[in-house]
């Protein structure tokens, strides 16, 4: 019986979600289709027109040379002319002049040997068309022929040939060929498709997130509370009411129900008072016994509030935090695909220090400030309240992001990033503290999952959107947009967190130097942090945040592509994280998971050394995503296992806090380390070397833990597992 009311409400809500999702999909699909059509109508034919324009303009130049008396066979600098044309026009594969028979005389763009007999046919057709032509307009003599990639051919050429006869004084001397690169078109097509797909996916994810937020906040949440209240009333429990204010119908219902409960309670109190008065006024023991019997009967009818009065149901507050968490993560992660590229624009050379190392500094500064300010921000948020903490953090982040976007040079950029780091850490701790405070033993896991889910969602959406935006409006505007998001999240925080909760024990504990000392004497803890936690975090900051953007841009990727590449990480952790966590819990193989995760992350970065290219980078991102998904949660379980005594003595939060702090300081070193590596060995090798370091570290970790074993594995109790990355 319990919960059936909520279930009745849930069904239409699921329907609402389905309909909204359907509508979103349809409208987004139509938008995507429309965008695709615009592209097809615009870009593709314009490339064909370009080829014709190029052909006619080159033809005119050759005719001019013939006009002034240069013999056809003595034309000089044709290749140079063709190369100028290719440089000036994107998307062309080659320009060539062939004899009437189709033999290549001059060419630039590809090796003539690769073409073989490919141009013979179009040359012949172009000549025939010229000879039969009545009109003098050269564009009417154009011949087009497409060559697709032949799978087993060594040439791997795919192009559309635009052929036009080259004639002088009415006599055809040769044929001019301008080839549009099919792979260029294919690349553009797939890029636009991926862009559209990314926008589709992320916009639906974000829309659903908002829908969930609104529905839970204004419908599902109160409905659940009404359900519980009705159930309580039905079972005669009048100790609870709903004090939160809601508007419209639900508000009326809640108000009425509260009035009913209050009336019943008031009547109960009145009856008890009357009974007590009657009891006091009589001396007859029989009457007293009768009255007592009546009172007992009444009390049996239901549970009534004691002297403390009625208690209110707890509102479903965690959903508010989910939205706030999503927003601040989103604001920060928007710049992930291009941050090092942006830094590079601001770096002025310093004698003796490589540019690559300087680029790492602002990223490291951010990480370091996050690491250092989290312990302080956590305690502070508990003291001043989460709304104040969150809004303060949001304001700091807003200023930091704006400053980042408008920075003058590397040094003020480092300052702005540090400020952003403090803001980020404050918001993070406010959200985390709030989640723990507003959940109890039963729903804490769910609350944490919701918090982590918001982070994952931002990891997926923000880099993809940031990349696409940066491609179109530039870095600065993306930072401004991020600042706007951060600012509006602070306004939202003021509106939706309307209650103050008592500080939780998680926030109350302070880190002590003695704790560090004790932990660092724990051999297993040191191995865990040195060979598992720090290396994986360094890979995350060094590889994903620094190397991937700079290397991909060097390979010619667009910012949108980089955004999508970085998004893979979010997808992997979101899809696989919960799965691996369950597997690890079920089979008690936390150590194995951590070791394996590290090995996979490290190994995934090695192929780029042998096969430098985009695919290897994507493989690396996926490997890090999978590796992180495997190791994040089990790592935390391991911490409590290896520091079992200390955890019992000082509490989870302290030990976890220290673990996080050391790990994050390691993360801050990542960008500088890969900066040094890339300055010496180049980006691809820096990737592979950092992968190798992580691999070896994980190997040491695995061997050490196999040899040492864990301590008292059986008496573990579950405790919250926080956050995914960062």
């Amino acid at each position, binding site marked *: 019986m319990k919960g059936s009311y909520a279930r009745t409400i849930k069904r239409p809500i699921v329907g609402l979600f389905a309909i909204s999702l359907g509508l979103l999909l349809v409208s987004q699909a139509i938008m995507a289709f429309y965008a695709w059509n615009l592209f097809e109508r615009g870009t593709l034919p314009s490339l064909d027109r370009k080829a014709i*324009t190029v052909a006619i*303009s080159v033809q005119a130049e050759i005719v*001019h040379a013939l006009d002034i008396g*240069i013999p056809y066979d003595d034309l*000089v*600098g*044709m290749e140079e*002319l063709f190369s100028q044309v290719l440089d000036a026009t994107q998307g062309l594969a080659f320009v060539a002049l062939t004899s009437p028979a189709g033999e290549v005389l001059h060419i630039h763009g590809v090796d003539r040997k690769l073409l073989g007999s490919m141009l013979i046919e179009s040359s012949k057709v172009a000549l025939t068309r010229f000879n039969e032509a009545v009109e003098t307009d050269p564009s009417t003599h154009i011949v087009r022929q497409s060559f697709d990639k032949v799978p087993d051919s060594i040439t791997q050429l795919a192009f559309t040939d635009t052929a036009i006869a080259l004639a002088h004084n009415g006599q055809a001397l040769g044929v001019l060929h301008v080839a549009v690169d099919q792979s260029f078109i294919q690349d553009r097509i797939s890029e636009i498709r991926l862009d559209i797909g990314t926008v589709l996916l992320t916009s639906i994810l974000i829309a659903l997130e908002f829908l969930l937020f609104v529905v839970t906040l204004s419908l599902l949440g109160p409905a659940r509370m009404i359900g519980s209240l009705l159930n309580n009333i039905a079972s005669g429990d009048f100790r609870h009411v709903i004090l939160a204010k809601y508007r419209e119908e639900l508000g009326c219902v809640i108000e009425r129900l509260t009035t009913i409960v209050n009336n019943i309670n008031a009547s109960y109190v009145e009856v008890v008072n009357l009974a007590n008065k009657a009891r006091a006024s009589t001396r007859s023991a029989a009457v007293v016994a009768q009255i007592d019997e009546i009172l007992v009967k009444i009390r049996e009818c239901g549970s009534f509030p004691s002297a403390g009065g009625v208690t209110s149901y707890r509102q479903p507050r965690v959903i508010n935090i989910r939205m706030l968490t999503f927003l601040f993560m989103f604001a920060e992660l928007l710049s992930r695909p291009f941050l090092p590229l942006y830094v590079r624009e601001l770096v002025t050379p310093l004698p003796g220090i490589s540019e690559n190392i300087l680029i790492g500094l602002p990223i490291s500064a951010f990480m370091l400030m996050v690491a250092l300010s989290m312990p302080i921000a956590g305690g502070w948020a508990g003291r001043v309240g989460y709304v104040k903490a969150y809004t303060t953090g949001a304001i700091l982040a807003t200023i930091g992001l704006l400053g980042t976007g408008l920075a003058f040079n590397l040094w003020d950029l480092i300052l702005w990033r540090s400020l952003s780091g403090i803001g980020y850490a404050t918001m993070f701790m406010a959200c985390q503290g709030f989640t723990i405070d507003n959940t109890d033993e039963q729903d804490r896991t769910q609350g944490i999952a919701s918090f982590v889910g918001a982070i994952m969602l931002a990891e997926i959406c923000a880099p993809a959107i940031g990349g696409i935006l940066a491609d179109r409006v530039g870095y600065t505007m993306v930072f401004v947009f991020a600042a706007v998001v951060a600012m509006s999240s602070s306004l939202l925080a003021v509106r939706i967190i309307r209650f103050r909760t008592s500080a939780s024990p998680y926030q109350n504990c302070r880190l002590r130097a003695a704790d560090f000392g004790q932990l660092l004497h724990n051999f297993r803890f040191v191995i865990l942090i040195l060979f598992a936690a720090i290396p994986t975090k360094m890979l995350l900051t060094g590889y994903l945040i620094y190397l991937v953007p700079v290397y991909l841009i060097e390979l010619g990727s667009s910012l949108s592509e980089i955004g999508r590449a970085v998004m893979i990480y979010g997808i992997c952790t979101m899809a696989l994280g919960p799965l691996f966590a369950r597997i690890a819990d079920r089979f008690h193989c936390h150590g194995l998971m951590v070791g394996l995760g590290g090995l996979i992350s490290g190994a995934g970065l090695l192929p780029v050394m042998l096969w430098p290219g985009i695919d290897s980078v994507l493989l690396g991102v996926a490997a890090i995503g999978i590796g992180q998904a495997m190791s994040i949660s089990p790592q935390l379980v391991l911490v409590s296992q290896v520091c079992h005594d200390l955890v019992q003595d000082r509490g989870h939060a302290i030990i976890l806090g220290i673990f996080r702090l050391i790990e994050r300081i390691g993360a801050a070193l990542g960008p500088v380390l890969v900066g040094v590596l890339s300055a010496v060995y180049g980006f691809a090798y820096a990737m592979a070397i950092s992968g190798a370091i992580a691999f070896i570290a994980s190997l040491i970790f695995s061997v050490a833990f196999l040899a040492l074993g864990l301590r008292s594995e059986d008496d573990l109790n579950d405790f919250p597992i926080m956050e995914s990355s960062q």
Partner: protein
Amino acid sequence: MIACGFRRCLPLLAITITLWGGLVADVTADMSEPQTRPLRIFMILWRGETNVEVGLRDYFNSEGIKTDLIIRNAERDKNKILEFIQEAKRIKPDLIYTWGTPVTLGVVGQFDAIDPQQHITDIPVVFAMVTSPEGSQIVESLASSGRNITGVSHVVPVETQVKAMLAYRKAKRIAVIYNPMENNSVLSVRALRRSAEVHGFEVIDQPAELDESGRPRAEDIPDLIDKVAAREPQFLYLGPDSFVGVNRKTFTHEAKVHRIPTFTATEVQLRDAEALFGLVSRYDSVGRLAAHKIKQILIDKIPPQDIPIETLRRFSYIVKMSIAKELGFYPPMKVLKYAEIVE
């Protein structure tokens, strides 16, 4: 669209054929007072009227400036210049225009040896066709003469000339024949060597031999060309050298016989000899620029020492097609985009 792209590339080249882009826009014109009487300009020429004077008149006509031009021709005789100076002092024109280095030096003297009796000091002077105003010590600095003169040079910077040569063909060796007694020539050969280091070619440097009176002999020219030809240069560079200029026909013809393409810095080598190609200042352009400076002095009332001495900013790349045909040595497609082709 593509064509636009090409056109946009052209200004990037140091050398283009546009004639008048180089002139400074005349922003002060509207502020000047209306002209009440024709400008009296006393023109002392070295060898009669040339295209420079055509450009000069053309500029005055198109600007609607009335002039009263008094023309004197020295007929390559330095003695006549002295007579003209006396005449100018007598009739007191608004301005004196001089053509060429000898005339200009005669009229204004070297900047460190001015004799007010002999030279003009109180009448503004605008000179044209002076190869090297600094080298010939007419002025100390091109930025300002520091005295009552300004003018126009017609020489294309050597580095620009080298780039023009190399645009035609890559070269390993470039030969130059010159009169070692001519200061201008020595300076330009030195500049050529500097460019050679930048562009990685070798300069085959052949000074003319001098007779007892210290002059090079015209009859040595075939020998000089023979010597140079033996080292197989890709180009023979004909600089702004009087000895080469006077004997241009012999030089260019002998080079052609040896199948050495000749590059020249002066237009006359193409118009009146057999040079293959060159990067030159058009005489009429030089005249227009000189006329513009005259206007600045007489109408806009800018003191001559405030007007810098300039050369053109844009030059003409001229290819003589008849010679290219004879040598079978044709200009590349790239050069055809901006070159002026003459027969």
